[in-house]
């Protein structure tokens, strides 16, 4: 049986005052796209830095393809492409020089992949780093992570700062890379993002892994906050809305209805067929709201504690 791409056992990094990462048991399979989801400060970057051997765990262990992330960190990093959450400053170096510098340090960087990824994201490598926008800096991070055909990609919030078109391009790139045999571990704090790309999702909160879910469960977890405005001469089907499957927290105020929809929209939309809806706004709630709503209904309360 092949070694797991990532395996952690009781992995902990205690920064004191309840901050850090605690007892993380996680297994990511080869050729899997694994989303690591959590609000800001939940411990995502700490986990990633432990995997990259950048910080030493207080307790527990982390292995990548069977290699200890700290003891065998050089061997581990031969197999890994890494993209940090924030690209460091490279001052007046040009993009192509940054690629050559880190590619030379790593060895095995493929100029064809560099060209391909840079072209796909329209990243001009001839410009100086300090002239790059934040989105272009992210794109450079993507080039650096993918340029050597790594077996495992560890990506810390890779789409932050990318515009929607480039985000879509990134999702395609992730899919292609997975199809080519690589494993991808990416962190995010946006549920809809990991939903696009991931086979499974681990949810971390206050330093503890609270859930590992597959796609079906992600869809079940996912919810939307809806705001519906009805025409003044139209009746609000309040009772039907309240009784629709997956609709919760219904609040009716004059001709405006707010509610939460869990899962599919279909049952709610059917209740509106006889009414005139003048406006409909759907918000994706923050991850914290999703957690609170999710655990209020589906999980034992102790599971969300730190």
């Amino acid at each position, binding site marked *: 049986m092949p070694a797991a791409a990532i395996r952690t056992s009781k992995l902990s990094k205690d*920064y004191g005052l309840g901050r850090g990462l605690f007892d993380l048991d996680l297994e990511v399979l080869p050729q899997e796209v694994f989303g690591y989801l959590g609000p800001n400060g939940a411990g995502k970057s*700490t986990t990633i*830095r432990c995997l*990259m*051997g*950048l*910080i*030493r765990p207080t307790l527990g262990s982390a292995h990548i393809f069977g290699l200890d992330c700290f003891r065998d*960190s*050089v*061997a581990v*990093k*031969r197999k*890994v492409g*890494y993209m*940090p959450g*924030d*690209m*460091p*400053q*490279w*001052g*007046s*170096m*040009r993009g*192509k*020089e940054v*690629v*050559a*510098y*880190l*590619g*030379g*340090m*790593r*060895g095995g*960087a493929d*100029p064809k992949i*560099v*060209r391909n990824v*840079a*072209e796909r994201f*329209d*990243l*001009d*490598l*001839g410009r100086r780093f*300090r002239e790059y926008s934040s989105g272009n800096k992210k794109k450079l991070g993507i080039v*650096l992570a993918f*340029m050597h055909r790594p077996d495992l990609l560890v990506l810390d919030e890779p789409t932050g700062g990318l515009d929607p078109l480039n985000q879509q391009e990134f999702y395609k790139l992730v899919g292609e890379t997975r199809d080519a045999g690589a494993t991808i571990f990416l962190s995010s704090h946006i549920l809809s993002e990991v939903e696009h790309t991931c086979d499974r999702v681990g949810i971390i909160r206050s330093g503890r892994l609270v859930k590992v879910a597959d796609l079906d469960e992600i869809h079940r977890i996912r919810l939307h906050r809806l705001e519906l405005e009805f025409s003044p001469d139209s009746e609000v089907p309040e009772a039907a809305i309240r009784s629709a499957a997956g609709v919760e927290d219904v609040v009716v105020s004059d001709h405006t209805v707010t509610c939460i929809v869990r899962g599919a929209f279909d049952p709610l939309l059917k209740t509106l067929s006889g009414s005139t809806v003048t406006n409909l706004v759907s918000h994706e709630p923050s991850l914290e709201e999703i957690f609170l709503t999710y655990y209020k209904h589906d999980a034992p309360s102790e599971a969300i504690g730190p």
Partner: protein
Amino acid sequence: MTAIRLALRLGRWGLIGFAGVGFFATFVNAAGFYAIAGHTQAERQAFGRSFAQVASQLTVLLPPPSRLDTMGGYVQFRGYGSLAIVFAIWALASASGAARGDEERGLVEMILATGLSRARAIAARIAAFAFAAFVAALAASLGVIVGAIAGGEAFPIDRAIEAAVLVTALALSCYSLVLLVAQLVAPRAATGLAGAVLLGLFLLNSLSRTFDSLTTLRWLSPFRYYELSQPLSPDGSFDVQATLVLFGIAVGAGALATLAFVRRDLGSALISLRTSAGPPTYEPSRALVWRMPVVRGLYDRRISLTVWSVGVAVVAALFVVLTKTMVQPLLAIPGLAQYFAVLMHGAIFPSFLSFIWFGFAQLLLAGFAITQVARWSAEDTDGRLELILSNPVSRTQVVIERAVVLGLGALLIAAVSGVAVGIEAQNESIPLDAGRLAEASLLLVPFALVFAALGALLAARLPRATIGILGVYAFASYLMVQFGPIFKLPDWIQNLSPFKLFGQPLIDGIDRTGLLIMLAIVIVGFAASAIVMQRRDVGA
């Protein structure tokens, strides 16, 4: 007020550090005077006369001395001559950081987004620096007063305050000039150009004392107005008009800097050459240098290494040119000529060159090492180290590569300056032993590596505090050589200073014990740095 408070907070470590340096420098000089000048009036007059003969020849770099038989006159010459340079360096670092460094980090954008006007933003930085410089200058004055008390004398507080005002005025004028220059060019060139301008203004005034042709231009230099006052010396005075000129320069340059800042785009220079945008490139650089360990580090630093090498070589040649100018008046004094002949075995010019050039070269190489260590710390705090370590390279490899790059860089600078000294010495007919010159120049490499090794250890453990600690160590080491013999410090304490370990290789050859100690420090320092680096968290 909020903007001023923020500026003060950003510069608090500079304030604390330079206040400490100011206090220590003046206190040690004041206490040193009482230790070496004797206790009777006659002894002090004799000391003042003999020291004045030597000191007057240093006026190539320092303001002319006055009443060296008094503590005030002595500290004015030895302490405040150097403090002018130290405070100018502080102004350079602080102003270029405020003008362009904070802009690079996005801080200026955020501050302006609060609704603060650009004029107020600059005014706040100038006001905050003025306050910080005055506090640090007062600390220097306090060092004089405490030194006087330690020597059993009282020192007039009004003169100490005048000295503080004078230093503040000079620092503030330098600060505003740097703010102005930094607006004109791209961020990466701002510090270098502003530093060159300040150095040029300093040399203009200093060299005008030796070269008459420069006297008509020295009014351009703020250092000229600084040296017109000698408030600590009993025969000196506080030149109100000259001090007001310094404040005037600060206000004028500050106003021009504000105008320039208002007219330019954030992140851009006021003066920039329009470059035509070529087609986008999607290829990585194919230059082989990026693939070769060590070579890539040297290539990455190619511009700064060139500037350092050429700059140090020019200064070296200048020292050689000035050697005869400085020494010949001393030889005209019959007693001193005899003294030099006995002490220096007849090799007066090489000995003087050894003392004055290699003394200064050590400071420059220490400065070079510290700038490289600063880069290591920045790699850590800016996140570059995290990305470097995400490649299959060990932390030990990173430490070794840094050490080798720095060593080769120091070797280049030392070699170029050595060649410059050799060529210019031949032109000036100063007989130098080529072998000794090569040895002395090469010895600058382990000397620089001592600071690098200590810096590597600090950068591995305390990256954010490294430069402050290393700067204080370099300063204390330099003072140790100056004052160790005066205070009769034990040899083992004096040997903690790399400046002492360096010795006088141009005259006496390489001190093998000193060299071995330096090499031991280098090996232990880098080895310890590798171990600490191995155990620490990166990017946490």
